[in-house]
């Protein structure tokens, strides 16, 4: 456990030094969501209708962009192999990275989502639910994204390939996440969807690091 904590501490201290890594995904999230009223319609009723989906797709894409920062640098400068060579389990390494990724990118997204919700005319009740849904869903995305990132670490055009690999895996979280917010916005029950998000979090948190660790060892070659 202490190994995990010290790994997380290291991840955070490295990433926090470059504030741009912290800001970019957040800025991306805000800008992308802003595109929709401009591209679709500023009509409040219709905005509220598309808001759940827009928020989720934008959050998903922002997290996808943020993955790079936590994995690629360690791979490139040799830190990743040194970590693997010091007997630390691949599982812990991945878990630490995914958790740090969430703290630095996911959590701010959750906190800023209500602002976007207001911009997109989401009701107050739905706004709260959106925060809750994102709170449960964004960590899953970090864990699942870790798999794709670990597979593409050593590749030249890894970034584009990462998107292709990871988006299908994101779909369940996307469907249930958006549906949670949508149900809340029309006053329908949403607890079931939240439960599914919770289950997805547990499953991905427990199992994804195994797959990602195996992928890391393959990429290290």
């Amino acid at each position, binding site marked *: 456990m202490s190994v995990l904590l010290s790994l997380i501490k290291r991840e955070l201290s490295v990433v926090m030094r470059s504030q741009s890594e912290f800001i970019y995904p957040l800025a991306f999230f805000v800008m992308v969501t802003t595109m929709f009223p401009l591209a679709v319609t500023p009509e409040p009723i219709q905005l509220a209708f598309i808001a759940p989906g827009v928020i989720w797709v934008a959050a998903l894409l922002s997290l996808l962009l943020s993955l790079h920062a936590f994995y690629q640098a360690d791979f490139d400068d040799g830190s990743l192999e040194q970590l693997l060579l010091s007997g630390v389990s691949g599982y812990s390494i991945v878990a630490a990275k995914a958790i740090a990724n969430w703290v630095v990118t996911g959590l701010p997204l959750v906190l800023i989502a209500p602002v976007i919700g207001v911009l997109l005319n989401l009701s107050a009740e739905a706004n709260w639910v959106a925060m809750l849904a994102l709170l449960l869903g964004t960590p899953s995305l970090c864990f699942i994204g870790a798999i794709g990132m670990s*597979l593409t670490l050593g*590749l*030249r055009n890894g970034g584009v390939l990462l998107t*292709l690999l990871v988006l299908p*895996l994101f*779909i369940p979280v996307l469907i249930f996440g958006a549906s949670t917010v949508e149900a809340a916005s029309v006053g329908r029950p949403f607890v079931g969807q939240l439960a599914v998000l919770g289950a997805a979090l547990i499953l991905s948190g427990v*199992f994804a690091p195994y797959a990602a660790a195996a992928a890391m060892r*393959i990429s290290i070659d």
Partner: protein
Amino acid sequence: MWTWFYQLASPKWFYEISRKLLPWFGGISLLLFLVGLTLGLLFSPADYQQGNTVRIMYIHVPSAYMSMMVYVIMALAGAIGLIWRIKMAHVVSVSCASIGAMFTALALLTGAIWGRPTWGTYWVWDARLTSELILLFLYLGFMALHSAFDDKKSADKAAAVLALVGLVNIPIIHFSVEWWNTLHQGATLSKFEKPSMETSMLIPLLTMIFAFKFYFLTALMHKVRAEILLREKQAKWVKALLSVGERSPKDQDITTDSQILESK
């Protein structure tokens, strides 16, 4: 029995035995296709609602079925390659990918063609078609990942990990899409359900399914053979095999003849 198992892992053995099996598998699949298509197109009843368009089912259903079965085979073969480090397992896994992708594309295409006269539109976000589309992305991702690596061994292993992750996710994705689809039932249709199966429809359908299975095995063997030659190109037996084609006895005679002429 174990000897057979070890033999299976030998590329050379597989290459030789597949040479003998190929014509049989190819012939059987061709026969099954002919029988199945004849029965399906000519001798089975039209649907009381959809008329003759229902006959697309004889291609659509086997394609969709095979697209999923091939993915499972691809993932399991990859797992065997990872766990027991058997190279042939990886060869089979990688060879499955493009065939499976093709089945998926065919299922999507026939689904769209079926859709046009039935609902007036080429595409609907029906649960099954959507799941099939996502399956196509999974296949494409597998193929893209494998080809992105320079080293074949790493490529095989990484693709195998991806296939397994995909395998675990497919039921989850399917469940999510089904659930999502029930929410938005308005647009979709029960007409896409398989028509209730009378024997006269069931027999051609089963025939076509087997035809597709034998086609898959034939195509797989072709690809595996090509992949074996590519991977084992440094092996003596491959070099011998390829050089036999280069100089046929006829060419040798001509050379000797011209040598004789020159020396005169």
